């Protein structure tokens, strides 16, 4: 019979005699945790080098916009150790890698559109020769005028999209009638993903023009698709495999593909394996970032702080090509409302085209930028009206019908905002602390404190409907061990840990018996990106379904082994803790491995695929109406911090978070997402400043000049709780998405900063604080507040 390792626990001999242990809904370490801490976890650049490996090195444009007159690689090709130098004309297929719109050549033709655009690809024996060869490639440019900011692009009429308008009621009339009218303009900054592992692909040529890629990407299917198009071959000739990523955050959703295509192209042309790896400076300079957004608002309130009408115009900086900019703008518009019911509104958005790297997906996907504007409006109102900003927010929450309709017409079903508000206000002791802070500020001359309450509502689903599907492949071996393949990629978020838990739960085996395999397009085809916080929702259902198929096939075999006679017994067979038994007679068990082995001898298939598509998702862009989201995730935070009026520095003193993740699949993983997301949001809002010079060159291209939060920037006191007793309907085991929503909780820091800054001025001082709120930005705001007295 089958042989299990002797260390495998034998549940039939436990005192209770009841083998019932599921890894679901229980805290667990990260599936790769010990491999991470031991350095044994393998990333693409750690793989043993295949024989004959070449380095692929890019020659890139030094101009933000220029005509490409001549590329001469004669001298570079003459350098010993150089195998090939390729330009656009050497591409056998299609010179296009735009993920949605075909406006992104893999290598420049005719013109270059940003500093860092690929002009040529050098393939050489090792990095040092490749680098020297790249310097020998002669490129002649004729510089052209460049657009380097949103405002410049708007003035020049340079856009990548038509306006998207969402409108309800008669906002003009409502504004005119509003007792309190506020207007303003705000700008949010870019943000570099700063995944610790930079972009990398290893491409190995195979037989018949096939190629196998190991790639750090959130979207292996798209890489496969684009590689096939660039090579002019069928997709069946391309396999893309993702071992794991050293961080993604959206930065490897579309933007891993160009570098992967270059590696594949190099492998095809030379017939040798090729690695394209960007060092930190190259990665930061050549890849897109979170979109900067310009927001203009016109808002009407009543005296109690109730929002009556709102007009907002958003313009995002798309960079040089479309990439995902339109979908990101859509999500910004869908999240302008955040948690608040707006009776009359007009939200308009458009993507501007600049001569900068093409901005792309980044955790929140436009949501943070949209919400920033709304929170700015509410803070502005609270300051004008002299109200507690938390109560202004509470006053405007979505409530019961008819105040439950979003601007695009989807009802906010399962609204947990009032509950979150009440529970977090109490657990964080908000009212007492706000009073204490006011007393502190009155007696402290140079240092002031602030506290901010931040609710978040976030729509879950890809807003591009067809992406809401997923697949899985589960293979059970005759020793009872399991290989799990699913379409999602692991970038640190703990997806594999959750999927392993779902799989182990469904098959009733110990999670240690389930190995989550590399994500690969030859195991689970035609997948969507691991993005939009949807990884667990979509893939979890697919994994569950595949396991159910196998479980059903095993039932008759188990019934025979357990000597169960009546057909009714079949449904009562339970799979748990590596044992199979009749639920009403748990003392009599047979090991899962025995059942599997018997099934094999019976010639029963032990592998199955699973598939899931989210139901009921629609959106009509032309009318601005629909149900783009399967459900909403909710969360709230209270942020307390302290500001130095001498230097503009601040420190976060305490953060309380209450997060609605439904019934958490793995609570320890969800907590990590909440904490990490919050700090990343804090970085976007306070310390991470992306700066380009007057020629469009990135100034902040390494951690020397680009400052993501360090350990000391994390709050001294960080209290994260998951909302209890909050299962969600129609999701995988009652859970909810968690990847993106907590990012936006950091907006509470801006509210807190504004309170502290205002305290340097007289009562009801209006605050004007730039984003990111660097020490300099804060000190400028403090100086302005002081000047108001």
């Amino acid at each position, binding site marked *: 019979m089958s042989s299990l390792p002797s260390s495998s626990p034998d549940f039939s001999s436990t005192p209770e005699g009841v083998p019932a242990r599921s890894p679901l809904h229980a805290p667990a370490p990260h599936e790769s945790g010990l491999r991470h801490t031991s350095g044994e976890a393998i990333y693409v650049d750690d793989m043993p080098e295949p024989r004959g490996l070449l380095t692929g090195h890019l020659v890139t444009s030094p101009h933000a916009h220029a005509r490409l007159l001549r590329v001469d690689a004669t001298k570079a090709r003459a350098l010993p150790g150089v195998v090939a130098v390729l330009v656009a004309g050497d591409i056998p297929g299609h010179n296009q890698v735009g993920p949605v719109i075909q406006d992104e050549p893999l290598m420049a033709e005719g013109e270059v559109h940003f500093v860092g655009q690929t002009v040529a690809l050098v393939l050489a024996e090792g990095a040092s020769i490749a680098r020297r060869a790249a310097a020998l490639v002669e490129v002649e440019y004729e510089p052209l005028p460049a657009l380097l900011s949103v405002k410049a692009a708007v003035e020049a009429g340079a856009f990548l999209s038509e306006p998207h308008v969402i409108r309800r009621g008669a906002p003009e009339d409502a504004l005119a009638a509003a007792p309190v009218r506020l207007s303003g303009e705000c700008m949010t900054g870019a943000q570099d993903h700063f995944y610790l592992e930079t972009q990398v692909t290893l491409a190995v040529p195979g037989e018949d023009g096939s190629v196998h890629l190991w790639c750090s990407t959130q979207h292996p299917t798209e890489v496969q698709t684009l590689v096939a198009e660039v090579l002019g071959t069928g997709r069946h000739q391309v396999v893309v495999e993702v071992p794991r990523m*050293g961080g993604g955050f959206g930065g490897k959703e579309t933007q891993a593909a160009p570098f992967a295509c270059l590696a594949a192209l190099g492998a095809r042309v030379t017939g040798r394996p090729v690695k394209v790896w960007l060092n930190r400076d190259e990665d930061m300079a050549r890849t897109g970032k979170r979109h900067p957004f310009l927001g203009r608002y016109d808002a009407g309130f009543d005296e109690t702080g109730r929002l009556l009408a709102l007009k907002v115009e958003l313009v995002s900086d798309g960079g040089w090509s479309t990439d995902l900019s339109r979908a990101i703008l859509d999500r910004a518009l869908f999240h302008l409302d955040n948690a608040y019911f707006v009776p009359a509104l007009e939200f308009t958005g458009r993507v501007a085209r600049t001569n900068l790297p093409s901005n792309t997906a980044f955790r929140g996907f436009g949501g943070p930028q949209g919400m920033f504007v709304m929170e700015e409006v509410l803070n502005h109102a609270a300051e004008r009206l002299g109200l507690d900003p938390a109560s202004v927010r509470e006053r405007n929450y979505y409530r019961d019908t008819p105040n439950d309709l979003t601007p695009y017409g989807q009802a906010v079903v399962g609204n947990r905002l009032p509950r979150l508000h009440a529970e977090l206000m109490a657990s964080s002791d908000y009212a007492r602390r706000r009073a204490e802070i006011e007393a502190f500020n009155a007696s402290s*001359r140079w240092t002031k404190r602030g506290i901010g309450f931040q609710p978040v509502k976030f729509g879950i689903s890809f807003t591009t409907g067809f992406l809401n599907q997923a697949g899985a492949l589960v293979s059970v071996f005759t020793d009872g061990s399991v290989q799990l393949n699913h379409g999602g990629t692991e970038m640190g978020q703990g997806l594999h840990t959750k999927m392993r838990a779902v799989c182990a739960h469904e098959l009733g085996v110990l999670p240690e018996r389930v190995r989550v395999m590399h994500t690969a397009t030859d195991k689970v085809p035609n997948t969507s990106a691991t993005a939009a916080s949807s990884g667990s929702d979509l893939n979890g259902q697919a994994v569950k379904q595949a396991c159910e198929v196998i479980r059903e096939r095993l039932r008759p075999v188990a019934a025979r082994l357990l000597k169960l006679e009546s057909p009714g017994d079949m449904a009562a067979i339970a799979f748990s803790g590596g044992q199979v038994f009749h639920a009403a007679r748990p003392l009599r068990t047979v090991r899962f491995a025995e059942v599997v082995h018997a099934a094999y001898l019976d010639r029963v298939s032990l592998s199955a695929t699973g598939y899931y598509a989210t139901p009921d998702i629609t959106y009509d862009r032309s009318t601005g109406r629909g149900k783009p989201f399967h459900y909403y995730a909710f969360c709230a935070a209270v942020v307390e911090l302290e500001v130095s009026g001498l230097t*503009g520095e*601040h420190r976060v003193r305490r953060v309380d978070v209450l997060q609605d993740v439904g019934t958490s699949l793995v609570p320890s993983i969800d907590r990590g997402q909440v904490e990490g997301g919050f700090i990343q949001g804090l970085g976007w809002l306070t310390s991470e400043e992306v700066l380009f010079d007057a020629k469009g060159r990135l100034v902040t291209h390494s951690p020397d000049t680009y*400052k993501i939060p360090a*350990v000391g920037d994390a709050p001294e006191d*960080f209290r994260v709780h998951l909302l209890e007793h909050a299962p969600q309907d129609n999701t995988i085991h009652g859970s909810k998405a968690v990847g993106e929503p907590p990012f936006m909780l950091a907006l509470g820091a801006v509210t807190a900063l504004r309170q502290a800054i205002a305290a340097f001025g007289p009562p009801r001082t209006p605050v004007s604080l730039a984003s990111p709120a660097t020490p300099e930005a804060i000190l400028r705001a403090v100086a302005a507040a002081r000047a108001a007295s």
Partner: protein
Amino acid sequence: MERLRFFLNDRPIEETGIAPTTTLLRYLRDRVHLTGTKEGCAEGDCGACSVAVLEQDGQGAPTLRAVNACLLLLPMVQGKRVYTVEALREGGKYHVVQETLARTLGSQCGYCTPGIAMSMLEACHRRDLDEPWKLDAQMCGNLCRCTGYRPIREAAREVAGLRPGDRFARALAETQPEPMALAYEAGAQRFFTPDSLEALWVVLDEHPTARFVVGGTDLSLEVTKRYAEPPLLVSLEAVPELRVLEPRGGGHRLGATVRLTDVEDYARAVSPPLERMLRYFGSRQIKNRATVGGNLCTASPIGDLAPVLLALGAEVVLRSRAGERRLPLEDFFVGYRRTALAAGEVLAFVDVPAQPEGARSLAYKVSKRREADISSVSAGFRAVVDGEGKVAEARLAYGGMAATPARARRTEAALVGQPWTEASVEQALPRLREDFQPLSDHRGSAWYRAQLAENLLRGFFHETLSTPMPRLAERHSATVQVR
């Protein structure tokens, strides 16, 4: 030709023919295929490449220190014991650092994690991590983009000071220092590590314009970022005469090649201004390699030690075969990134004199991020207040305000003879606009720098009003501690 010799995970290594500007990181990943150590930035800012090196601390005791492998040129580990993350797991058993970090979910994507494990290994073997802020100071050189740090803090707190009986404890107890002296050559490049002043003079007789290096935290960037291949480097790391750290005439002598970690430990008991500057100077890994001499000799306008040493009235001692000369630190900086060092001369010591009766002094550093960042403005101040409450002397030194670290002479003059009051400070502050015309760049606009220059002096006045040498708070909201 001599060989490179060192120990890697307790195995003896001998190499020849490798360029001396090969970094330890590239050696580990490309030559010996130890891929646990990651490259995150190749400039010592992210810590993903952290490894541990066993060496002597300021008192000559063996110690285990985390350093950035991306900034260590291979000859710099001559004779040393280097440990990578692969050394942590012994006999199939995970190290307590690894278990703890995994249990607390201190890793998500895992790419920064090996480096974090190595910083935690240092924490594990330290005896002085008794306050939360010290743990942050230990870990601030490791950037993590996923976790938000809470679990990393928790893991660090659990393992700090555990000092388990691991291979590192054994090595600390048993290892005798091996010679670091080296005369190495590969291709067109040479690297010398003389192990005495006399041996140094011999090298300099032949190569009077040789470039010196000690920790390499600045110079290595030329290699990793600009792919420079300097033909000749002379390391001063093994010259014992330059590594003194001791009280001297009521003040202190800081040897040029003393590591900043050791200076920080030393300063904690004797000099609050120096301690505060070193708290914010850089990450632990950087301070474990960077030196007093290196920081001063780069003569960067934003070198953080200069302002505080200027304020404390430090003098530099320059040595050559011909003998010794002594200069006030002010006279050492002769222009943008230029010093008074002559050919064949080295910076040997910095002498910080005894502080006068009635002296109040402190140091400040403001940067975009508090930890592991380069100053927008830094400052060191000393005001000597006489028995009548009047300012007898003022030394106000700034970094980031001019082409060199410099004193605000006009502002100083406006204070001397005045009572040490807020009114006097306020009437002197406008003079700062005459002393400095700062530049605008990505670390701060001219407006911000000018504002900081004023505000730091204001902060200094208020902070030292009641306590001339305030004890530093464990944690505070900003680098100026004034309510």
